[in-house]
């Protein structure tokens, strides 16, 4: 069955361009030009991925992202921002809201398709092994996280990042190594994006995010997962 991708883009030329290339790549595409149309359209088509422009009429892409993450049905559907806002703070804000990638305009058409595929692959490929630590548990097949017994929302990317680090307790990874391992071959996110994800994960699993027990920063090097004693 064809996977549907929901595109929020108010510029018709670009919407057509995106539609054309995603269809070439084998996806079904639904486009809309206003932020207000995303949720109703999503309920109708159950998209596999959202591609959101930020500055659009109606709700902004950021607002749509927040709504999707807050909803029951689409909380775990991957989101990619596709925007002209190339600033670092926009990038960080997008990732902070739980987006899985951030593509800036102008983009290469091949790159677009490749990154959509990469995010979907990341999402689809289940991590088979579960990991249990005193404060949290990663359930491999369902790709869910529970912290101190409470089910906690995680995006696919967050899950994979935590799983990757927790699978290698005590080993130090540079940001580049983390990018390579979690985001695979497509390291389009900047090393600073890794920091954003780590911060979000700390807020979810650590009792004191300022003074982490599991996800430790190694100064001048990168990150490591400290095994529980």
């Amino acid at each position, binding site marked *: 069955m064809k996977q549907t991708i929901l595109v929020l883009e108010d*510029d018709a*030329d*670009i919407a057509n*361009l995106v539609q*054309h*290339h995603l269809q070439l790549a084998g996806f079904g595409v639904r486009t809309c030009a206003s932020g207000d149309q995303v949720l109703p359209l999503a309920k109708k088509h159950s998209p596999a991925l959202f591609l959101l422009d930020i*500055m659009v009429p109606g709700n902004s892409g950021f607002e749509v992202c927040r709504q999707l993450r807050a909803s029951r049905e689409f909380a775990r559907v991957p989101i990619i921002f596709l925007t*002209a*806002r*190339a*600033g*670092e703070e926009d990038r960080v804000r997008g990732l902070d809201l739980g987006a899985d990638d951030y593509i*800036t*305009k*102008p*983009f*290469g*058409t*091949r790159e677009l398709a490749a990154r959509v595929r990469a995010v979907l692959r990341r999402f689809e490929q289940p991590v088979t092994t579960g990991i249990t630590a005193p404060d949290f548990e990663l359930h491999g097949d369902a790709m869910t996280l529970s912290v101190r017994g409470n089910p906690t929302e995680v995006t696919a990317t967050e899950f994979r990042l935590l799983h990757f680090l927790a699978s290698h307790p005590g080993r130090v990874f540079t940001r*580049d190594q983390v990018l390579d391992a979690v985001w695979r071959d497509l390291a389009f996110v*900047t*090393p*600073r994006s890794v920091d954003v994800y780590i911060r979000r994960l700390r807020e979810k699993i650590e009792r004191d995010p300022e003074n982490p027990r599991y996800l430790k920063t190694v*100064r*001048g*090097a990168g990150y490591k997962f400290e095994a529980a004693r």
Partner: protein
Amino acid sequence: MRNRIFLKAMAAFVAVIAAATLTLDISIRHTWENSLRADIERLLVQNAQGFALRVANDHQHTLQQMAEEEARITETRTTIIAHDGIVLADTEADPRTMENHAGRPEVAAALSGKVGSATRLSHTVGIDFLYVAAPSGDKVVRLAYRLSSIQAHISGIRQTLLRATALALLLALLLAIVIAEIISRRLRRIVEFAGKIAAGDLSARIAETSGDEIAQVAAALDRTARRLEDNFAAVRESRAELEALLNSMTDGVIAVTPDLKVRWANQAIRNIVRRPLPIGAPVIELLRHPDFLAALSAALKSRQREHAIAASLAGRRTFSVTAEPLPDGGVVTVLHDISEVERVEKTRRDFIANVSHELRTPLTSIRGYAETLLESDGAMNESSRDFLEIIRRNADRMARLTEDLLVLARVESGEDKLDLRPQQTSQLLAEAASSLQETTRAADVELTVEAVPDWSVMADGYAVHQVFANLISNAVRYAASGKKIMIGAHEKPDGIEFFVRDFGPGIASEHLPRIFERFYRVDKARSRESGGTGLGLAIVKHIVLNHSGSVRVESAVGHGSTFFFVLPKA
């Protein structure tokens, strides 16, 4: 004051009068008594001799009669004594009861033919007498003068003297009071005058006309007051000028004491704070702004000019704050309103950002559709394909330009808060080398990292990475012919200096001063062809400046170029 001068004058007068009285008294008692006695003795001798002559020749009167007469005339006790010492006549005692007088020294001297004299207590009458005896034929005459009358005379004089002394003392007292009063009145005037001057009334004058020392002091004080008044007038005038000048400024000027109290502020400050400005109040009550206060404290501490930008001070305005230490330990601060400049600057930056964003949307279409056509299988001749490729390439370049413009606008504004933390030099170099390895390898250039000791610098790792990325891609772009790029670092007094060295064609010296300017191009044709945006070095410069570092370049045509940037040590 008055009492003391009076007492001193009084004591001096009394001492002088007492000394004079004492001296006079002593001289009266001794010298004068002696000379009086000598005079009387001489008179007695003459009288005695005269009487002796009469006694020897007068046979008409009895001896007693003659003695009585003589005693009356000379106011003496007169005695006539026979040569055997028997008293023949005496004016104050009965001769028959009187003892023999031959043994008396003056009588003995007269019996031997001379005039004799002696002072003695009379046995007969019991008072002090001055005796003078002279021979008179076979008899001796003796006149005795009562010394008590000399004493009475002298004591009369002494009494007069004492009365005079008492009078003199009384006069001295009055004089002392008057003199003390006059002097102290003059001194009081001088004190009052000095008090006025001390209280700041420099127009006060004393007119002292007499020429004595007090008048001289008064004149000297007068002159001082006049000079002070002149000087103060000059100071006031220049102060007023300065104040008028400072008040006419649109910049706020505020002077504070070393303990951060307001000493002075101009009108502009009043307009900024819009409330009464109490002199002497703590400055923190006036302008509670952390950046402003930090600049003040820094200048107080370092004794050097300090500079700061204080945003949202007094409403929404932004001020450039310059704090300059004063010689006496305080600080004078100038607040220059740069809100308008900031606003214009922000408008410009927003405009650049908006243009950059707005350009991206059409660029996406241009690039995307060109790519789409290039990838389509539709029939297309070779030149159409070339043209599409040109469109795509230029769209790419324009995209980079919009990107760089945005980055430059942000680093220029300092809006991007740097995440400064200690970073290892070797780590920064290694990260730069590893992430740019691909770029250099693609251009067939070897990138080597010079081994360096592990210094620690205060830097934002990501920003430093951007600096290296710009410098290394520049080196690849313009100096790939050198086949080698070298990066490293060395220690400098003001920090750690990193460098990126290429072995390419080098840059002519006339370009070096301007090379960090935006859009400055050394070789216009070549730059365009190579796809540079002309903004890379400007971005590098601003990132480094935001780190409080500095940039420079060394180059010579034919000998490659080296770009340096200094980062502060951690």
